[in-house]
């Protein structure tokens, strides 16, 4: 009985939070704040995608920015060259990412642990260099620019940030839902077993290679959905800006700070990191260069020293304490 009541209570919270999120743009003080929310959603979505392989599988990938970039470039090029709506080309982006994930995963999952991570760095560098090299096709270092042609859903261009807000909210919700499904799927269970002990898992018939590859591809496809939304929102892409290791690290960092292998960790990470870099920039950006970014680095260090398992664990404690209290009352 009490369980049931608690469940309702919990649901109440999440329903309340969802409604709050849905109404937010109406009360948002400025387009800027809305834009920051869009960034939070998009980065949370990316970190959620990363979490599938990097968290649940503990296969730390440093090429997720590349899949993101693949998504962005695919949709941009198809739109600029053939006027194909990003809503359609998102599927092309997913297919491209899937294929590339297979190409990277195929050799690198023969290796375990840190080797895989380093292989992903190599792959990311190769793709970045190629994007720079094939200038005629990709615009090279100049990047690609999307001129504003008036608001339209088909071309994902809007006068304000509000439509992006809802779109990115939906994308995030979708990816969290996929992760939730994945957690409970066979694939999810197999991956968790592999994470714990790969030798044992294999000896019991789990095809670790295939499972990791599948999860990696899933994760890559997930993040490639975010690419087009982000690219159209920012309306400019270039290989250094979105295909760089720095971005991959940022994505991973968000998931880790929030808490890996948890459903809500990546969102929490984004809620903290994105405003943090905005706030340090706003407060200290006008002083001598470096201060804001240095503080940002310092905070990363502090978080990891004091909460290495991710900030989501704070909530565990909170929950635990509540339980304890109840027990005492009884």
């Amino acid at each position, binding site marked *: 009985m009490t369980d049931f009541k608690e469940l309702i209570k919990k649901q109440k919270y999440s329903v309340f939070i969802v409604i709050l999120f849905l109404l937010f743009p109406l009360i948002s003080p400025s387009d800027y704040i809305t834009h920051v929310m869009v960034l939070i959603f998009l980065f949370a979505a990316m970190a959620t995608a990363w979490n599938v392989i990097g968290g649940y599988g503990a296969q730390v990938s440093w090429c997720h920015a590349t899949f993101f970039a693949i998504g962005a470039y695919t949709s941009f090029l198809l739109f600029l060259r053939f006027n194909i709506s990003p809503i359609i080309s998102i599927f092309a982006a997913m297919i491209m990412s899937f294929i590339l994930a297979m190409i990277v995963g195929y050799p690198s999952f023969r290796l375990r642990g840190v080797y895989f991570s*380093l*292989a992903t760095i*190599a792959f990311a560098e190769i793709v970045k260099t190629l994007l720079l090299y094939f200038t005629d096709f990709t615009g090279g270092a100049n990047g690609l620019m999307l001129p504003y042609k008036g608001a339209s859903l088909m071309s994902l261009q809007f006068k304000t940030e509000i439509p992006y807000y809802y779109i990115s909210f939906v994308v995030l919700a979708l990816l969290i839902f996929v992760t939730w499904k994945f957690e409970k799927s066979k694939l999810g269970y197999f991956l968790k077993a592999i994470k714990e002990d790969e030798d044992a898992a294999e000896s019991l018939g789990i095809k670790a290679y295939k499972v990791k590859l599948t999860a990696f591809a899933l994760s890559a496809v997930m993040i490639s959905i975010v690419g087009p939304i982000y690219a159209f929102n920012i309306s400019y892409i270039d290989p250094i800006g979105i295909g760089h290791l720095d971005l991959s*690290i940022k994505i991973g960092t968000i998931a*880790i700070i929030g808490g890996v292998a948890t459903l809500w960790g990546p969102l929490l990470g984004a809620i903290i990191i994105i405003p943090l870099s905005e706030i340090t920039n706003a407060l200290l950006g006008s002083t*001598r260069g*470096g201060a804001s970014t240095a503080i940002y680095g310092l905070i*990363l260090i502090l978080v990891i020293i004091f909460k*290495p398992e991710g900030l989501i664990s704070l909530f565990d404690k909170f929950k635990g304490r509540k339980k304890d209290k109840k027990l005492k009352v009884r």
Partner: protein
Amino acid sequence: MLLGQTIINGLMIGGVYALIAVGLTIIFGVMKIVNFAQGEFLMVGMYVTWLLYKAIGGSPYLLIPPVIVIMFIFGLLLYKIVVKPVVGKGDTAYILLTVGLSIFLQNVVQLIWGANYFSIETTIKTEAIQMGDVSIQLPRLIAFIGAIILVGGLHLFLKKTDIGKAMRATAENSQVASLLGINPSRSFAIAFAIGVVMAGMAGVLLTPMFYVYPRVGQLFGLTAFVVVVLGGLGNITGALFGGLIIGLVEAFTASYVALDLAPVGTFVVFLLVLLLKPEGIFGGGVRKT
């Protein structure tokens, strides 16, 4: 001439890569930390060199002893203050820590000395040895020789001295090490500090070739990873050969394929090695179950 010059180009820059990779590999070897801040340690080493040079002058190479001392202390302090609290908290913790450290160091340095480019006025930087058609740039030759000496010395240190063996023991199992009377924390501290000192040495040897500025470490960060894997993670001599191989691959890709694609050449070789010989070209194996 092109062939000869290409080989020389490759070997010389390879020595530079080895210098940076060797610090990375010892930290990984002993502490299992994939250190994303190694490039920044190099950067700090270059600033230290530059500051000392401004204060003392002379030849930058004469600054090696004080730089060793300063970097060793810097390494110990870093270990005590930020690394030690994280020891044993897992790979992802190390990743975040070193990423954070790298961002922090880069920007603190910028905060203090600005984003300017500094250099030291030594005449050696444009000197070269001419061998027929082939020319060898003197600073690179010195860095190359320096790399060989440092790698050799470090290798002997780890293989032959008790402290070196103790560090390897700690690397494998710190609890067992402590049962043998080895202080694991001391091993870690020394390994970390040596990694930082190696970056400092690289800093001295690179200062004549590169500007000193906050992001200079980024020039080498990725290549160093590749070199380390190629040589076998944690393998000191492997780092030297890995560095030379990457240098050669880069030089040959640049000369014979396309200059722009030199990084692609490097990373393709890297992926091939991962595929064919994942324990690194010089790695050995230990039984599994």
